[in-house]
């Protein structure tokens, strides 16, 4: 089929939609309400902005964090929730109790980047085990110098900077590196604002920290990224290419939106928004500093959502799943 002009198509569809659904129980929502993760927010904001200009359908986006977003989502206050980590068992239970079914939709990758000070010339490459040695709970008060992490590194004080315990970034980092959710040493400088972490590491020779690639990309003149040894045994720096081809692991994490399945199935405005979201997710994600999936992967995600496959791929915690694996697991778990 030839690609239609989206703006005109949508206006026509709104008119048609309004007539078709005005008498049915599933009338279109006036305002598409979205909430959730501050990490996913820039993508959703970008899509919402363009969608509203193209169709005139109103969209609002709040930033309550992944957990806060799910609270609203499972009460039915919002139809879409952004999440920088998969939904948790507790949250699934809340949703189930309220009779809300959800569709899990991965939208892009964020490459967590381990960063060091510009004048740090020894730790350009690290293994996940070495990162773990610095950050694990057992390191508290003990691993205080770089020389304790790897023999041959200088006796420079080790200063750690990381996101606070409320963030999905923190959850993913602990799960992928420490292999235990939320397990971390207590004596590091925590901030919910990644720009503060940038300042911290930039001003401290022995500093090390981690956050999303976008924050590193904007501060390349102040910080250096660390190449992390992947499953294949190669040291890989985070970038668009290495994340897209899967060689940057285990720190590339998927970002999600969760859809209210009933609305996604029956509400014409919500449907239109999700179609639009998936069509432009890759482009918008890249524009705001994240890493898109491949075209084929977005197609598979679209089929997954159109097939109304509810449930999550993460009933058991899992790290480093490909998009295909996530969709298959999610469909199988239904």
């Amino acid at each position, binding site marked *: 089929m030839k690609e239609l002009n989206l703006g005109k198509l949508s206006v026509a569809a709104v008119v048609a939609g309004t007539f078709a659904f005005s008498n049915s129980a599933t009338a279109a929502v006036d305002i598409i309400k979205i909430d959730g993760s501050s990490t996913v927010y820039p993508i959703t904001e970008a899509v919402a902005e363009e969608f509203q200009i193209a169709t005139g359908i*109103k969209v609002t*986006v*709040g930033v309550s964090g992944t957990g806060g977003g799910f609270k609203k989502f499972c009460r039915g206050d919002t139809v879409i929730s952004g999440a920088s980590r998969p939904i948790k068992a507790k949250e699934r239970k809340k949703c189930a109790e309220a009779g809300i079914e959800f569709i899990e939709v991965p939208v892009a990758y964020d490459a967590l980047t381990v960063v060091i000070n510009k004048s740090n010339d020894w730790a350009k490459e690290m293994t996940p085990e070495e990162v773990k040695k610095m950050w694990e709970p057992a390191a508290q008060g003990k691993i205080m110098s770089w020389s304790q992490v790897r023999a041959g590194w200088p006796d420079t004080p080790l200063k750690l900077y990381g996101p606070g315990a409320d963030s999905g970034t923190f959850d993913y980092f602990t799960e992928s590196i420490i292999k235990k959710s939320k397990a971390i040493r207590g004596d590091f400088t925590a901030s919910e*604002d990644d*720009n503060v972490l940038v300042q911290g590491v930039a001003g401290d020779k022995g500093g090390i920290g981690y956050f999303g690639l976008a924050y590193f990309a904007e*501060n390349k003149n102040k910080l250096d990224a660390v190449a992390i040894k992947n499953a294949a045994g190669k040291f890989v720096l985070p970038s668009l290419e290495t994340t897209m081809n899967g060689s940057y692991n285990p720190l590339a994490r998927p970002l999600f939106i969760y859809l209210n399945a009933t609305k996604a199935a029956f509400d014409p405005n919500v449907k239109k928004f999700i179609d639009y979201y998936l069509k432009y997710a890759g482009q918008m994600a890249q524009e705001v*500093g994240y890493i898109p999936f491949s075209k084929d992967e977005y197609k598979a995600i679209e089929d997954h959502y159109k097939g109304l496959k509810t449930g999550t791929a993460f009933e058991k915690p899992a790290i480093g799943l490909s998009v295909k694996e996530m969709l298959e697991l999610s469909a199988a778990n239904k």
Partner: protein
Amino acid sequence: MTIKTSKKTAVDVNAIRRLIKKHKKNDLMFAALGMFVIASLTITLIILFLDLVLDGYPKFTLDFFTNFPSRRAARAGILSAWVGSSLVLLVTFFVAVPLGIAAGIYLEEYAKKNWISDIIEINVSNLAGVPSIIYGLLALGLFVYSFGLGQSILTAGLTLALLMLPIVIVSTREAIRAIPIHIREAAYAVGATKWQVVLHHVVQYSYGGILTGVIIGMARAIGETAPVITIGALTFIAFLPPSPVSIDPPFLNFAWLNAGFTVLPIQMFNWISRPQHAFHINAAATGAVIIILTAMMNGFAIKLRYNVRKKIKW
């Protein structure tokens, strides 16, 4: 010491002069210390403000005030934020001011001085110092869920009104206390009732002080983020609430009270936490706008107080 010895003999003028000189020197030192403290505070504030203005300077354009938020920093503006802040403050004003002034007048003029009014008095003073997030949590449970008002402008206005209420009550009472007792006695002497005394004298003369309290409260409310986020203010909203006034009868409509909204501090917070430097410029400009608004409100309060004082003839 010198005085003691000088008393025994004749008056030692030189010793007294030395003493006065020493005390004057202390005076001078204290004045210098005071100047230093005030100057360092003012200069810090001015530097912070200038820093914001210089950072945000490129954004002081009409577009910035008439554009909605956007992923492109250059195109992003604060239209929904300043409209949201204004409407929320409008609600806050119309709720907190009548209630606060009435409560202040009641406590000062009508309430019996007993242990109940003592407890109320202590509580009002304490409430003025409660962290704002507590009001946010209270409002989330009470207004959003129990009363079902949702995440609306009305909820935010009521929340900030709660926050502002103690400030208005306390300043109303202070202003009323400053009125000399003989003004009241004179009014009673010519046969005025209590209500007439309150309406024609007490309120008239304390008006300036009350307004100062009101505007200081409003200036505090405009910068509040925590309670507004707690009740569920939005971050991205690219349309305006329905207009409160219309050209067709009934001219006023209240649909905007139920609308979602965002406010200036939230918009600023979102921008400052973004990775791209261009958004930090937007945040600085928004910060400067908030400070300028606050300063304007304070200036307005000073002017009003001055005008009222000029009219008072005693």
